[in-house]
């Protein structure tokens, strides 16, 4: 299951790690927190492993194991039977019923080991024992459950109007300790730590603590010493506040609720059989079956339970239906109440069907006894209790809410009734449930709600009308992703809110709720919530002592909560007024006068107060404006930072682009240059060629000239040669002349070879030149 949902998480980002839909406005924040959750999960896995190891080793010393294995065997064989009978009764329906419970078991290897036979046969499980390593916790918790069950058996179950537990206790001195023990047993360390602060609670606690050991010794601590259990409980409490590891959660919850102790074998199957038989026999309303009205309601709500959750496919819905029908049969005083569909759905995601049934039984019958019944009495009482606590803890905030006309119950009602399911992000819901189921009472409900007020009160004070306040609170609560902060604020910040104190307050406030309900059921008189003067008067008339009290109260400035006493009268009024004779007129006139005076006085003080409040409000508003503005500024700054970042990125990109462009340009330039160079080269070469041509032509021309000259010189030479030879002939006779001429001759002869040589050389040159 876990793996599957993780897969889904990857595939579909609009769902969280549990497969629940995320609101679009939260996806971003969820992603931010997803990593934190992961880290926390790793840490707590480690811590839990250590703790369980430690507990397990201590337990192995005791002969517990033996007993456990015996039970286990019994359970497995019985389980097989169960499945067989189920198949025969519901046919195909059951075979596919629990694809998800199979998944759950697949994800926990220990369970696989426990039931090798079943897994081999691929039989679908409806009941599954929790892993042995958690037995210790189970035993620790079971004492509480055993006592509750015993007590429930003692008290007759009829009167769901008056939950008899507390009533009986206050009357009976000895049973006070007995009841306190329930929570002292489990949250013993918790109450103990509060004893320093809670003066009132100390009394009851001392009693409970003194009784506890002797009582408990008889029930559980036969094997394990009391001290050991106590230290474990303390450690366990710490661990629970840190949250349960995802893989263990389903089983640890069962241990907390005491599923094993609660379970009656075959009970669930019998309920289902009974239900199917009834609906088969007769479509009409058989007293033994689930009332048709509730059936219709369940049918309407099944598709509206975590719509779209991957695990709530057709099989998942069938499981859900069976679970809710079985519960409706199991506890007719509750039957089915909207909100239970979500609890059942949540439990089915974490554990097999029958386990979920017993866990639901534990939660609704025990923890939330009287909450979801037809009249929803305890739920209404708790609203009053919560408001009382709010007034005590956050007087300023409540004043502001009063001023806006916002009633605390408007938002706390849905919170409490849904145990925060759909009200907080899932991680936070589960963390709250961890503590709530561990503590075994509704204290965590109050503490969480108070923690939310502590966290968001400052923001709420800035709102200027009722609508804005509620809207703001809804959206803030819906984005409480910091589950650790929430749980720690709840657990550590409100230590004085203990079960003892809550029981006290409930006792005090219950009568007013009961009175109103009584009146409604009588449907006697028109009852207006904004009670008119007449009705108020009437109540005074019936209460001789009250006017004086009332006056004192009015003088006492601050309007405290009305006494239940008064409410009694108000509600008692309906019945009485019709039967009683008219009151004495004169008496009435006197009362009227007194009342008028009082009211006038009240009005005057109210007007004064209003003025005061208005000025205070103006101040607050300016302050608030500043706060809002600063918040706004912060947000804007974040946005600006983001924008800047994107801008920087864009700039970087731009720079990169520019660089690229420049490079391209450079390259272009280079090639251009190269081209120009080449062209120039070409031109130069052309020019050179031209020049050479010219030179060649000139050379040729000069050559031709030279040749001409040579020819001329040759001809001249020849002519001189001819002439000389002629001269030699002529001068060979005279001797005298001969000597001189011989010298001359010699010179001429020496000249000749030079001339010839030059001619030859020139000729050679002219032959060579064309080849050049």
């Amino acid at each position: 299951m876990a793996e599957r949902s993780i897969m889904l998480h990857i595939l579909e980002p609009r769902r969280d790690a549990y497969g629940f839909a995320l609101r679009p406005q939260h996806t971003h924040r969820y992603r931010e927190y997803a990593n934190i959750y992961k880290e926390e999960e790793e840490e707590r896995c480690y811590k839990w492993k250590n703790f369980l190891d430690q507990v397990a080793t201590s337990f192995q010393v005791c002969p517990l194991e033996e007993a456990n294995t015996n039970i286990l065997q019994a359970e497995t064989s019985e389980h097989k039977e169960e499945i067989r009978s189920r198949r025969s009764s519901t046919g195909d329906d059951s075979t596919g019923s629990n694809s998800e419970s199979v998944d759950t078991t697949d994800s926990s290897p220990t369970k696989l080991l426990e039931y090798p036979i079943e897994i081999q046969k691929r039989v679908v499980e409806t009941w599954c024992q929790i892993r042995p390593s958690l037995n210790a916790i189970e035993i620790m918790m079971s004492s509480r459950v055993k006592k509750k069950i015993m007590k429930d058996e003692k008290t007759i179950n009829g009167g769901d109007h008056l939950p008899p537990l507390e009533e009986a206790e206050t009357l009976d001195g000895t049973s006070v300790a007995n009841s306190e023990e329930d929570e002292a047993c489990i949250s013993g360390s918790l109450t103990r730590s509060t004893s320093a602060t809670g003066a009132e609670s100390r009394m009851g606690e001392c009693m409970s603590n003194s009784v506890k050991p002797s009582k408990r010794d008889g029930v559980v601590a036969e094997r394990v010493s009391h001290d050991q259990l106590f230290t474990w409980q303390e450690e366990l409490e710490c661990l629970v506040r840190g949250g349960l590891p995802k893989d263990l959660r389903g089983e640890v919850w069962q241990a907390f609720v005491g599923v094993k102790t609660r379970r009656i074998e075959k009970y669930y199957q019998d309920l289902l059989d009974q239900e199917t038989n009834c609906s088969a026999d007769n479509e009409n309303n058989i007293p033994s079956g689930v009332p048709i009205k509730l059936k219709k309601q369940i049918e309407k709500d099944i598709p509206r339970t975590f719509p779209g959750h991957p695990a709530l496919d057709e099989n998942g819905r069938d499981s859900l239906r069976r679970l809710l029908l079985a519960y409706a049969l199991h506890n007719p005083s509750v039957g089915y109440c909207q909100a239970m569909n979500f609890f059942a759905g949540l439990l089915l995601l974490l554990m097999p069907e029958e386990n979920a049934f017993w866990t639901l039984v534990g939660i609704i019958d025990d923890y939330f006894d009287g909450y979801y019944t037809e009249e929803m009495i305890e739920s209404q009482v708790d609203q009053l209790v919560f408001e009382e606590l709010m007034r005590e803890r956050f007087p300023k905030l409540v004043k502001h809410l009063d001023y806006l006309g916002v009633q605390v119950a408007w938002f706390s009602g849905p919170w409490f009734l849904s145990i925060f399911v759909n009200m907080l992000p899932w991680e936070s819901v589960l963390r709250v449930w961890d503590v709530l189921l561990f503590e075994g009472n509704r204290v965590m409900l109050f503490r969480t709600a108070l923690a939310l007020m502590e966290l968001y009160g400052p923001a709420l004070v800035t709102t200027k009308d009722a609508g804005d306040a509620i809207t703001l609170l809804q959206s803030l609560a819906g984005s409480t992703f910091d589950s650790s902060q929430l749980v720690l604020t709840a657990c550590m910040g409100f230590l004085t809110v203990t079960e003892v104190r809550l029981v006290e307050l409930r006792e005090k406030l219950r009568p007013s709720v009961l009175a109103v309900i009584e009146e409604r059921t009588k449907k006697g008189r028109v009852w207006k919530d904004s009670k008119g003067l007449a009705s108020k008067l009437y109540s005074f008339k019936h209460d001789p002592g009250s006017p004086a009290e009332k006056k004192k109260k009015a003088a006492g400035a601050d309007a405290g909560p009305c006494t239940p006493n008064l409410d009694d009268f108000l509600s008692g009024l309906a019945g009485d007024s019709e039967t009683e004779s008219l009151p004495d007129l004169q008496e009435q006139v006197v009362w009227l006068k007194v009342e008028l005076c009082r009211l006038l006085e009240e009005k005057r003080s109210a007007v004064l107060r209003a003025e005061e409040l208005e000025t205070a409000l103006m101040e607050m508003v300016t302050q608030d404006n500043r706060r809002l503005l600063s918040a706004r500024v912060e947000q804007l700054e974040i946005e600006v930072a983001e924008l800047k970042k994107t801008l920087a990125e864009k700039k970087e990109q731009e720079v990169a682009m520019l660089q690229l462009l420049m490079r391209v340009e450079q390259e272009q330039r280079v090639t251009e240059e190269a081209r120009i160079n080449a062209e120039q080269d070409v031109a130069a070469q052309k020019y050179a060629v031209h020049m050479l041509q010219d030179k060649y032509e000139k050379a040729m021309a000069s050559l031709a000239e030279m040749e001409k000259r040579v020819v001329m010189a040759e001809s001249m030479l020849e002519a001189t040669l001819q002439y000389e030879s002629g001269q030699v002939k002529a001068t060979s006779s005279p001797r005298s002349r001969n000597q001189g001429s011989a010298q001359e001759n010699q010179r001429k002869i020496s000249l000749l070879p030079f001339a010839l040589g030059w001619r030859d050389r020139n000729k050679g040159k002219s032959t060579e030149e064309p080849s050049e």
Partner: protein
Amino acid sequence: MGCSSSVPDRASGRSGGLNPENSAADSKNLRVKLVLLGDSGVGKSCIVLRFVRGQFDPTSKVTVGASFLSQTIALQDSTTVKFEIWDTAGQERYAALAPLYYRGAAVAVIVYDITSSDSFAKAQYWVKELQKHGSPDIILALVGNKADLQEKRKVTVQDGTEYAEKNGMFFIETSAKTADNINELFEEIAKRLPRPTSS
């Protein structure tokens, strides 16, 4: 209801002076508390979601306790009306908590499903309840939702009209699915609101 007996006294007592609960602010900007009542599954939440967010989700969640949304509309005479809408849970036993939400409401919209006569009967129960316990000057609107499912109709238009007339209510048939008449419903309500006499 339960919480009423002690708390609301104070709230309503004070509301007269500083902060009139029903409708507030100046004559141009009205603020109205509106509550939706009716049987489970008739589409109360869908009507609100359609009106406020313009969305329709056929697989919407069960409402536990109540949920709140607000929406402001502008009228032709340039006034604005801010609806503060409380959408309540439909199951019968939650009726015990309803007074908490309808107390001090200026408008109650009672919704039934035209394909279910049970829901029409339930609507009549709510009308009676409000006539008894609601503010005396509360505006009641009767809404037959799921008007797109004509072929499955069980409650005729005439039934609705007649009952509404008899009880001095405003009646309209809507479909949150097709958005038919949803805005008209709220506009009509806005028109019927008493205007504070401008001082």
